[in-house]
């Protein structure tokens, strides 16, 4: 059981969600985030002051899946979220030790 965390461009959320559902991912959790990386920010102006904004809006998607699905998930995200330009984001994979479904207390892979 592994957690896949993907930081993506906000405009790609819809496509990634569809792609994941397509391949059988049953649940995901989404967080609004701001990212800093190679992608350059922009400049804003307020009454003669110039601000450079280098935390850009991103979406973070988290989904915990059974080990077998991991590569498929990565592939699906890559296909849906890639534009080829800087700022497309990252995917991180972590081992999860246990999962519990709150509704019925299912545990482990069954809980996903």
């Amino acid at each position: 059981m592994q957690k896949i965390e993907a930081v993506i461009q906000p405009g790609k959320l819809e496509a990634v969600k569809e792609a994941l559902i397509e391949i059988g991912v049953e649940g995901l959790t989404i967080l609004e985030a701001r990212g800093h990386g190679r992608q350059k920010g922009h400049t804003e102006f307020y009454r003669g002051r110039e601000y450079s904004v280098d935390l850009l809006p991103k979406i973070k998607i988290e989904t915990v899946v059974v080990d077998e699905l991991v590569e498929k998930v990565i592939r699906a995200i890559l296909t849906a979220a890639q534009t080829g330009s800087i700022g497309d984001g990252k995917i991180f994979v972590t081992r999860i030790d246990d999962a519990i479904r709150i509704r019925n207390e299912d545990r482990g892979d069954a809980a996903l």
Partner: protein
Amino acid sequence: MCDRFRHLLRVCCVGSFLGLLLAAAPVLHAQAAGPGPESHGVSGAPTTSDARLLALEKQNTDLKTSIASAQTAGDNGWMLVSSALVLMMSGPGLTLFYGGLVRRKNILGTMMQTFAMMGVITVLWALVGYSLAFGENTGHLGSVIGSFQNALLHGVGLVPDGVYVTTIPLQTFMVYQLMFAIITPALITGAFAERMKFSSTVVFLTLWAVFVYSPMAHMVWGKGGLLNAALGGKFPCLDFAGGTVVHVTSGVSALVTCLYMGKRIGYPKVAMPPHSVVLSFVGACLLWVGWFGFNAGSALNSGSLATSAFVTTHFAAAAAACAWTAAEWLKTGKPTALGAISGCVAGLVGITPAAGFVTPISALWIGLLTGAFCFSMVFFVKSKFGYDDSLDAFGVHGAGGTLGALLTGIFANSTINPILGAGKATGLLEGNAHQLLNQATGVAIAWVLSIVGTLILLVVVDKTMGLRVSAADEEEGLDLSQHGEEGYHSEFTGAH
């Protein structure tokens, strides 16, 4: 200078502080409120009969002047308030109404499009706009366009001109009409929301004000205008407050513009719900309130005709809000707030040409019909044809304005406003079927002028400076790409 300076210092330091203490001297000394001006009686009355007659005749001339002044006081106060209300319709009314409907990243860009009109059209109006719309043109095109006679507001003074207005300063009329000239192009922005360059918006809409709005206003309201019902136009078209001049022109031009520009990226696949129906709601309420200035102010005085227009305006808005809400409730099972406010705006649009011509009960019908009609336009027609009239400028203003102008020809009532002559039947229901034809003529001219004019201007601006923002700018949003700022800031954007 030195004396002045000394004085000044003394005044400021001593004055304000010690002054307070010393001022207490003539304290709390009772003094009746000053005598009113009316208390000055006539002193030294003449004695012979003839002298008394002469004095009376003289007095009557003075009285007439005083009465005119009192009449002006009432009418002018109301017209200044109306002017302020119509400006309030643009900002903050329309800016909020439209601003709430777009996505968060375009809020300022959308508001700025209307605000730019508040700035630019005002200057334009002073230079040539007023003159092109309302200036007398004795040339052979005088029935379609004004002249440069009042350019730079030459001859637009502080007394009534006797033609446009008889009891208020002509400048009041000028500034009141200016507020209409501001909001009309601003209405169009709803159709091309979220995708036009700011620079091009300003240029396009300014040209539009010159080449489409001015002739239309002249034809309907200007001296010698082709459609002017009050000043003997060839095809007298009833348009009390701008059904054709404001709503048909802006609405139809809106349709042309959104067809020409194409859809927003992702439309209609990507959901683009309003980022804040709350803002739109506030905007719609302000539009409703401001519209009293728009419609009742179009009486150009504060007499009973203003009352009549006020009442019809309110009734139509309410009826249309009910109609749209009911229709939506039946259709989708839920009456939305956005539907209710869209309905009220549709009703306000529909009653605009009719406001000073119909009875309150007719106004209920007009509201009901326009509300239901605009509902269908937005729910069925738009989705059928698939154009991206982003904020339904055509669906509400174009459709509602057209229907309203026609309904005016049906419901207009000579007991409310004998504009065609005392006792003469005015609308179809009174038996004057011909008026409907005149209304149709007015509407047709507004449609053709708007289509042709807008199309030419769009092509011109597109070829010279480009209309649309780049795809990247559109994704980023107008706020950042066009104005370098964001509508809302959390303490958490890494700005530095």
